[in-house]
């Protein structure tokens, strides 16, 4: 994906060879080849959902190659508009020239936060909290009812907006009374053992702390197909950290993830993610930004949960003739930007087509507008809702009253803008293949 030159520690030759360091160590990424490839066609700008609704945002072409060139001169700081980029990464798949735009944005944001943002500012503290939701979540999930109660109080929301700049327009997501990992431990881990069908599940933060039903659906669907599931230790994927320019936090998280996932791959597993931003991060952003041992390995062995089944199982045949209850009748489906970028936007509709009685309607290619932590910030709330307007309109114009998507924050925005209940595709597959809410179901097939 990326044209950038990665600093590399690899040295050719055998053990006896001791090279002398002639050039100083390459510590910064050289993004010049990418910048040179930009021929200013501006296709990226027409894909930017922020530039479309916000006159103050100069767009991805400026944030990427142009700003990169400008700051070759020492008298130029990174422009603060880079914090208005929502990291939807649409510019990447728009560019006909393979300019690594989102990589440029991520490095520029990192540099801006490092050098131009006060570590004592309200913005910095707020962004760091939002980006590191993963480190606050365990506390909240220890006392989920209290946490949900407190966070639902209007005084808390008012305080959040006044002191931190977190919009009071949104309701903070509820914490589950039992996390996915707690459930997984209680059930005794994997119930299928297999030598040759094994996956390492990267559940991410949200399906662990907030929507364990999605993670459980993944477990049941994969066990139905006879997979042994391992759930490695893991940290946040890093997506919210990239988006807030917290590259050091992201680096720490990525280091854990790469180490644990690479070990699972070594044990014969493929990595599966149920959140499209998590898979995007492992597949694209890690190799663009980091060079831990095994980064490339993890990237090329990571899959989207449904994509993997389509390629490795006859998912269509398995779904043929199945049906689901009435609650899964019609869906208004929104493809998240981060699944669009992976070439997965048409997938859900194609897969669900095989199930009897489901009518899944694609609501078009607009961005939902929330983009992770972006739409939670007071200053971005209005922009976020303006971007989402097109999606809300399309959802309301469809027959469905239930929404469907694979991204947790898109799902919040869909619910927030329309009042619809939102499901994950894995939950629909679970209902079709093993029956909904089938806690402790016996897997149909077991590898000997």
């Amino acid at each position, binding site marked *: *994906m990326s044209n950038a030159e990665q600093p590399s520690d690899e040295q050719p030759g055998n053990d006896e060879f001791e090279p002398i360091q002639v050039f100083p160590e390459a510590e910064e990424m050289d993004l010049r080849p990418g910048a040179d490839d930009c021929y200013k*066609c*501006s*296709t990226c*700008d*027409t*894909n*930017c959902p922020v*530039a*479309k*609704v916000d*006159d*103050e945002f*100069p*767009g991805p072409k*400026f944030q990427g190659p142009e700003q990169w060139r400008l700051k070759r001169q020492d008298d130029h700081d990174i422009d603060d508009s880079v914090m208005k980029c929502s990291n939807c990464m649409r510019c990447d*798949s*728009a*560019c*006909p020239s*393979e300019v690594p735009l989102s990589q440029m944005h991520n490095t520029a944001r990192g540099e801006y936060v490092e050098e131009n943002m006060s570590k004592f500012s309200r913005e910095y503290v707020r962004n760091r909290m939002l980006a590191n939701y993963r480190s606050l979540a365990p506390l909240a999930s220890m006392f989920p009812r209290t946490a949900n109660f407190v966070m639902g109080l209007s005084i808390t929301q008012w305080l959040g907006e006044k002191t931190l700049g977190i919009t009071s327009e949104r309701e903070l997501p509820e914490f589950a009374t039992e996390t996915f990992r707690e459930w997984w431990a209680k059930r005794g881990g994997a119930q299928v053992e297999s030598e040759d069908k094994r996956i390492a599940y990267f559940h991410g933060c949200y399906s662990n702390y907030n929507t364990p039903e999605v993670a459980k659906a993944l477990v049941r669907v994969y066990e139905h197909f006879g997979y042994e599931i391992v759930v490695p230790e893991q940290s946040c994927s890093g997506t919210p950290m990239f988006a807030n320019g917290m590259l050091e936090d992201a680096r720490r998280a990525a280091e854990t993830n790469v180490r644990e996932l690479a070990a699972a791959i070594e044990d014969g597993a493929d990595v599966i993610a149920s959140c499209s931003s998590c898979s995007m991060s492992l*597949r*694209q952003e890690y190799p663009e930004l980091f060079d831990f041992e095994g980064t*490339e390995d993890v*990237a*090329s*062995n*990571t*899959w989207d949960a449904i*994509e993997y089944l*389509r*390629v*490795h*199982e*006859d998912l269509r045949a398995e779904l043929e003739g199945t049906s689901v209850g009435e609650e899964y009748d019609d869906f208004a489906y929104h493809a998240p930007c981060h699944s*669009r*970028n*992976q*070439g997965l*936007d*048409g*997938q859900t509709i*194609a897969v669900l087509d095989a199930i009897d009685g489901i009518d899944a309607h*694609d609501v078009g290619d607009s961005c939902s507008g929330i983009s992770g932590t972006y739409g939670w910030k007071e200053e971005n709330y209005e922009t976020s809702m*303006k971007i989402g*307007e*097109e999606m809300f309109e399309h959802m309301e114009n469809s027959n469905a009253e239930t929404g469907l998507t694979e991204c947790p924050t898109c799902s919040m925005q869909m619910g927030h803008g329309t009042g619809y209940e939102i499901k994950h595709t894995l939950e629909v597959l679970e209902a079709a293949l093993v029956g909904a809410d089938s806690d402790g179901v016996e897997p149909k097939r077991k590898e000997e």
Partner: protein
Amino acid sequence: MAIEDDVLVIGGGLAGTTAALAAAASAKDARVRLVTYKQSTLRHASGLIDILGYAPGDDANAPLVDPFDALEDLPEGHPYERVGSQAVRDALAFFDDIAGDAYAGGHTDANALVPTHGGTVKPTARYPVSTAEGLASDPRETLLVGFETLPDFDAPLAASHLEAAGAPFEARGVTLSFPGIVRDDAKVTRYAHLLDHDETVSTGSGETGARTALVTAVESYLEDEPRVGFPAVLGDEHADEVRNVLSDELGVDVFEIPMGPPSLPGMRLEERLYDALEDAGVRVTSGVPVVEYETADGDDDRGWRIDHVVVDRHGAEIPHRGDQYVLATGGLVGKGIESDREQVSEPIFNCHVPHAEDRYDWFVDDAFGEQPFAAFGLVPDRELRPLDPNGEPEFENLRAAGSVLGGYDYAAEKSGAGVSLATGYVAGTRAGEEATR
């Protein structure tokens, strides 16, 4: 296992979408998939559907009145010669069905003359309805309106160019500031969004909707011209509504002038084609490249068959299998044809691209001369199967369409859209028939 379909189209521009739609139409039960990597060059295109504006090699350089008359005289190997003129008519009719009331020009075989943002006129067969009131053959006086923050369209200059080019009317140009736009480099989508959603903007006389604000800004400049032309930024999703409101409130006809890249009329056409794909049940996989292919030995001397292609999804290699394949990856701009200092090549199937061995023979010194590189591309048979250097089909189940084909210079001929339509239509129809036979 592979993702299985009957017809697999590679490339998502005008040729690829037409091929996929034609395949779905020719074989009702066929499963058709379109795989496209980067966004198509339709976003760079004017949105005009030209068939043939100028005869190739014609030094007189007069625009053709009837493109169909000229089709019969094209040299052997030209894509139109390969498919035949009836196929061009069929493809255009197929397009008219898809375009519905969004395009005009179907009432006549003759080319229309549409003013461009540089003040020249382009001979074209079909044009978006948004440009219809602006045709250069229409003798009504014209006011052109440009915007300070949109330097790609200089209205006074375009107006004087049009008059100099012999347009049969008086044209006048004015430059205004667009209400609600402050940035010098605002995106075309920003203008369109302001008008689409009639966002509230601040003007000298208070807050008002963007549409009304624009009308107020233009009104005072309007003398007695019965039509006003704007650069093509008048809305995206609700372009018709925007144009109608402006037209009603100004009391004159309003039209758009197609712009350079990135182009809203091109985007609107793209949107329409992708809606049609969805309606036709064509599966679309976008954002990921096809990187290689595997063959299966043919069971007799019919040559090689492509068994499957490999899609690279961020490092994961996903096999996609079709019975029939259509290659519509574009030319040098769309990167369906690539060149380096050594050679010109087609990167996915490595199909034969004829070119001189010495790269100094790829071009001529006269910049506006007949450039050999402009016609680089695959050489097809009449079925549109790319041929190897010996004149044999490279693969029995591969067809090619659009500007990945060689033998024509679309920039000089103004034939880009027509060739994409005609070859996409033929390649897709044959692929559909073949796959379900």
